[in-house]
């Protein structure tokens, strides 16, 4: 085969790619921040929350973790309007990512909470902190610290998984590649380019998250 790579056509499409990258970043920002927040809440609910909350959280986590992201996305985008709740494609994609990351991070964070020595809970209690105060001030930060690398990986996985949001017409990075190739029929160039950008984004995202971890957990630096 004598296929000749040609990136010249890109000149006309780089704005599409730039917008796509911006959208992918925007999605992972929203999904990451809210998803982890949801994950913290669910982890608390499942590990320490009131009895009635635990099975509900478990149901949510299992439903999400055991079905494909794409299907979840379809139900939110095409299905919710039938229930009178219409979200545009970007909102739907963001919500799907929040829900997805929420379920995964709930499990990860819960592991961190459960690895917290009992003595920490007891020390909090014996200082007259309420259970919620103990969770908030004593348990949460060290628990997050323990699982931070795993959480960072999960965020990267969700970012890469977000490629399928182009199926509901969200104009993300994969959309850009598909759009360009549907016009120019230069699929290899388009996919090579988007793969390279995804790799760069993944490396950058992980790096930033780990740096964020250093900021959130300053005591780690003092560790011997």
């Amino acid at each position, binding site marked *: 085969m004598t296929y000749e790579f040609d990136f010249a056509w890109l000149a006309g499409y780089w704005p599409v790619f730039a917008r796509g990258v911006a959208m992918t970043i925007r999605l992972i920002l929203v999904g990451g921040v809210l998803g982890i927040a949801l994950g913290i809440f669910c982890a608390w609910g499942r590990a320490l929350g009131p009895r009635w909350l635990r099975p509900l959280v478990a149901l949510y986590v299992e439903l999400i973790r055991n079905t494909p992201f794409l299907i979840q996305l379809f139900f939110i985008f095409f299905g919710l309007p039938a229930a009178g709740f219409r979200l545009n494609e970007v909102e739907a994609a963001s919500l799907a990512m929040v829900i997805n990351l929420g379920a995964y991070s709930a499990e990860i964070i819960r592991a961190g909470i459960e690895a917290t020595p009992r*003595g920490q809970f007891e020390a909090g209690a014996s200082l007259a902190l309420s259970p919620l105060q103990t969770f908030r001030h004593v348990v949460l930060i060290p628990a997050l*610290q323990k699982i931070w690398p795993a959480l960072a990986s999960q965020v990267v996985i969700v970012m890469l998984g977000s490629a399928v949001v182009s199926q509901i017409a969200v104009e993300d990075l994969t959309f850009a590649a598909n759009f360009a190739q549907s016009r120019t029929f230069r699929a290899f160039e388009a996919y090579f380019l988007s793969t390279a950008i995804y790799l760069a984004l993944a490396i950058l995202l992980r790096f930033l998250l780990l740096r964020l971890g250093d900021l959130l957990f300053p005591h780690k630096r003092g560790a011997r």
Partner: protein
Amino acid sequence: MSLIAIEGLRKSYGEHEVLKGIDLEVAKGEVVAVIGKSGSGKSTLLRCVNGLEAINGGSITVDGARLAGDEAHLRALRLKVGMIFQQFNLFPHKTAGQNVMLAQQVVKKTGKAAAEAMARRMLDRVGLGEKFGAYPDQLSGGQQQRVAIARALAMEPMALLCDEITSALDPELVGEVLQVVRGLAAEGMTLMMVTHEMAFARDVCSRVVFMHQGRVHEAGPPGEVFANPRTPELQSFLGRVA
């Protein structure tokens, strides 16, 4: 009137009855050493007094208020009685100073400046004034335990419960912690402490309580208890430890 009054206290884990009816009074300013073999229920006793374990029978009264299981009562109790653990249990993500400040700010809603002033005072008191900004893992075991003491003191409790607070320390570091406790006792703090340091118990405590199989087996002033143990169990226990 006694500060801590324990009557007919019973505690079981499942089938296993660990405390089989404990009666014990601790007056204000008293320093009580609780000794006994491993598994005799010493820790459980202290944990019950701090409300960390739900009790199965009897009553515990602290400063006239009877211990109940609900959240509000428990918190009120814990404001009166501080506890220090064998494993220090400092909060690893907070500096020594922040460890001491946290509960003041969160529980007592003390302002930051006041909490910090108190923290500095308490750290000074345990000889760690200059370690305010150090994280626990930058401190030696003895230093960590002293921060734990400062943390409990900052809540201005009426009594302190200490559960083998020197057992996890290297021998060289035991002295510095006991020195701090000695100071507290001298200042009139009410103390109830589980300890294996017999010499210390003899020197500092006003009363020694020997527990055996979930009961108070013998009790009395250290001079008497150590010099003339009446029961064979205490005799054998002292023989082994000394």
